[in-house]
């Protein structure tokens, strides 16, 4: 008996290698999150006191900024998939500007902490706060550079439904940056 069941075509977005990078990078952050939790258990009172000095409004705004940016990148990939070539650079530029807004927000937040005499050396909570958010910020800066390059490529019409691998790979990375922040925000700002 021969049957030919409908086989859904499943495809990994982007190049496979970017998934290696994303998974490994998330494992690195996972180790850091576990380290943070270990220290938090040991020094619960200190971490809780220090957490109250962080402004959750900054964290919340940054979350919205990154989610918006990720959504814009999704729209850019969708535009490429539908061959709406003119829309792609606009969406990528808007996503990149969101990334810059995140950086500015972080700079203001860091500036406030440093002006109040709070540094990574102040205690273990701030060590984690500055290190984790700093490493994440480096990812955001890298992503902004990537989005700028994509924007220039999109202006030259290099992305369409047949040429999406690079764009999808970049989008995968950018979603990872977003996802990491979604873990970081409650871990540092909200967890009681």
């Amino acid at each position, binding site marked *: 008996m021969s049957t030919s069941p409908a086989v859904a075509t499943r495809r990994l977005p982007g190049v496979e290698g970017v998934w290696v990078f994303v998974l490994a990078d998330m494992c*690195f952050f996972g180790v850091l999150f576990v380290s943070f939790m270990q220290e938090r258990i040991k020094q619960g009172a200190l971490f809780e006191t220090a957490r109250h000095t962080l402004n959750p409004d900054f964290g919340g705004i940054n979350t919205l900024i990154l989610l918006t940016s990720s959504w814009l990148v999704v729209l850019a990939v969708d535009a490429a998939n539908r061959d709406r070539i003119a829309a792609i650079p606009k969406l990528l530029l808007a996503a990149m500007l969101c990334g810059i807004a995140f950086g500015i927000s972080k700079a203001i937040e860091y500036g406030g902490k440093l002006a109040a005499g709070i540094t990574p050396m102040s205690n*273990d909570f701030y060590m*984690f706060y500055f290190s984790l958010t700093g490493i994440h910020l480096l990812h955001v800066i890298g992503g902004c550079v990537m989005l700028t390059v994509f924007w220039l490529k999109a202006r030259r019409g290099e992305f369409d439904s047949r040429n999406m691998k690079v764009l999808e790979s970049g989008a995968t990375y950018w979603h990872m940056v977003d996802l990491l922040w979604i873990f970081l925000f409650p871990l540092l700002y909200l967890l009681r």
Partner: protein
Amino acid sequence: MNPTQPNPTDYGMWKLMAWTGPVFFIGFFCMWGLLASNFPPMAASTSAQDMWQHYKDLQTPITIGMSVCMVVGSCYMTFGAAVSRVMRRIEGGEGMLANIEMTGATITYCPIVIACGIWLTIALQIDVLSPEMVQTMYYLAWMIVDLAYMVTSWQIIAAAIVFLRDKREKPLVPAWVCWWGFVTVASFFPVSLIPFFKTGPFAFHGMFNFWIAFPTWYIWIVSMSVFIIKAVNRIEIEDGAASPSAVREQSGSLIGAR
């Protein structure tokens, strides 16, 4: 010298240089890690007196281990030369990235040899050094060997970009090794935090900056070595300089031509 005489590729020397990659990683694992008791390394938070005692107790193994490492470390340079030659086959003779890779590998040897030299000197002079001086020199070596990571990063980035551009149906170096290179570079950046922490994941002996950053690099070196050795054999076959069977016989059964 006849200027018109062709310069045949010296595959034998090329293979020898490729095999210096395993010499480097096996040598360092055994001499630096096992013999000199650096798995795990002495913590940054160790007191000066305890550091002094550590070197006093392990004077002979550290002396032997660091002496050998200073010699074996040079294999990273020769391995880098072999990688660079493979990269030229993809990038072309005028390629800049192959130069960056070789220069990066060469300069990476510098902080390695200086740091090992400092650890060796502590062991040699332990009886005339104060505990504070031992601690200072120990920190100095770690700062030098760790914070030079960007040179190695350029080497790894250059290799990854070129090998990802390989148009062969079966690339000389698989894409996952290239992407692992990017992972390695990403794992290096938090190393910049080592001057600020003596405990926790960002200290030089910490969970992240030692147990993740170094093994990640190590995996890159091992995997790149394996595929570079294979790549030289494949290039030799592509050039028609040897039959596949001859190359397999020459290379042995462990790492043969694909």
